[in-house]
């Protein structure tokens, strides 16, 4: 075969930062769809509405203090339903959908390191999930009791939960094909049922740590959420870091469709 000498186009190695920026932007563009935003935005609106309704009503016999009502609602609605479900929909979809529809190959078969790619996926999910969850939870808490304690606590707790859940579910999306369904089962069976059963189980759930941040900050006592604030913040952070690291390892072994 005759080798015709053709000038090749100029290129340079893709650095870690460039990899992160590219993948972050691509994934962000892919996971944000109008129907998802609308459906989960409505959910957030509902949370604010409930916060407002609870805020304007007077004390009830069961919950005389606005602070305890606020803590209770943040745990039962925010940390139990809104944060995990919204995080699941977007985080499990980042790499999971890309694998399913075959677009992962456009990032995978490239001279890129895996770990900034995993990090890009993580932060793109976080960028969507955080406003969709933290804003409604904090606003509804503020509407119930605008003491700085509850607002700060709700902000910290929901942020901690978002950080942890997003990491777990991004990883889940690379591990299982029907990751959203498995994630739902995990949320209901483990996070809701099991962690309600006892202290040990609560310490193995993200909700247990996020809830502890809330109770420690506000001083309201809720069963099984009895850890210190620092543990409540550190553990979900560590979970996220480990999850991203595992995601990056998993990307090296995955079968790309």
């Amino acid at each position, binding site marked *: 075969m005759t080798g015709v000498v053709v000038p090749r186009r100029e290129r340079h190695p893709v650095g870690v930062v460039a990899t992160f920026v590219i993948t972050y932007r691509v994934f962000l563009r892919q996971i944000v769809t109008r129907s998802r935003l609308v*459906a989960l935005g409505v*959910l957030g609106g*509902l949370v604010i509405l*409930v916060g407002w*309704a*609870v805020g*304007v*009503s*007077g004390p*009830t016999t*069961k*919950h005389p203090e606005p602070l305890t*009502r606020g803590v*209770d*609602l943040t745990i*039962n*609605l925010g940390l*139990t*339903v809104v944060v995990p*479900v919204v995080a*699941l*929909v977007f985080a*499990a979809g980042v790499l999971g959908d890309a694998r399913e529809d075959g677009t992962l190959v456009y990032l995978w078969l490239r001279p890129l390191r895996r770990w900034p790619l995993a990090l890009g996926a993580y932060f793109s999910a976080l960028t969507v999930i955080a406003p969709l969850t933290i804003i409604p939870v904090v606003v509804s808490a503020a509407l119930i009791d605008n003491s700085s304690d509850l607002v700060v606590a709700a902000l910290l707790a929901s942020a901690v939960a978002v950080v942890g859940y997003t990491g777990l579910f991004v990883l889940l999306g690379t591990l299982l094909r*029907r*990751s*959203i*369904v*498995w994630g*739902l*089962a995990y949320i*209901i*069976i483990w996070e*809701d*049922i099991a962690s309600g059963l006892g202290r040990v189980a609560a310490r193995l759930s993200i909700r247990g740590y996020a809830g502890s941040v809330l109770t420690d900050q506000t001083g309201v006592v809720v069963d099984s959420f009895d850890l210190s604030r620092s543990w409540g913040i550190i553990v979900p952070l560590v979970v996220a870091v480990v999850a991203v690291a595992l995601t990056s390892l998993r990307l090296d072994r995955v079968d790309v469709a």
Partner: protein
Amino acid sequence: MSDEAMIVDRGYRTYDGPRSGVVGAVRSVAWHSMRSVLGIGRPARHKILPVMAVLIAYLPALVFVGIAVLLPVDLVGKGVIPSYADYTGFIGLVIVLFCGLVAPEVLVGDRRNGMFGLYLSTPLRRDTYLVAKILAVMATLMMVTLGPPLLLLIAYTFEGSGPGGVGNWLVLLVRIVASGVVISAVFAVVSLAAASLTDRRAFASVGVILVLLGSNVVMGALIVKAGVSSTLGVLDLLGMPFELVQRIYGQPGGFPKMSVLLVAGANAAWATLGGVVIWYRYRRLAINP
């Protein structure tokens, strides 16, 4: 051996026997859907989640039976262990999860893998197809709504702490069966309605769970914490069927101020609304052809 050779024709044979018609078609689709949702005849990975959910639903019943056998005290009577009426509510979250697994699997899959179009080329029509699907979800849900209380009844009866007298026993049996059937029917239609709205199984699951769990948490918060009239509980899609179960056992549950008629009416209204949503979605659903 006979010394005459014989060749058996393995070719095409005609079938002139009876055909079972639409009823048979509905039965076959319902049965097939049930099997498929439980992962029977499919690879093992499809079995894990449904089996896990069913096990968790039965686990408390088994524990309670165990306690009843080991301890001589009547814990049920003393309210330590949930009564028959309370049991379904006790495993409420598992039922929610089960709805989220079953309804999307039964309904959404057919639209994505071409089965829906093929079914319509058989004696089935859209309406009879949907009836089959509702029956399938109902029957599957009964595994967790009807099975555990029945297990309790049988175990308690053998253990000696069952209801006294044949009459009472029969009344209790009727209540268990009636509440199992009713609650399954309402959850089936409501979950299928939520699942009919999207073409992706995963989002259908999220939708079913958000509708059931979300309405429950929101209404709970509004009634308990905001002091809104408890009549708003009719909007609690999880609470209403469980309340109806309590009423079938002749006792008020979490919504004592509501009349039996209102509770029954709310359930009927939700089931009807769900049916309307499903029909609206499927009435004009495009198929090839």
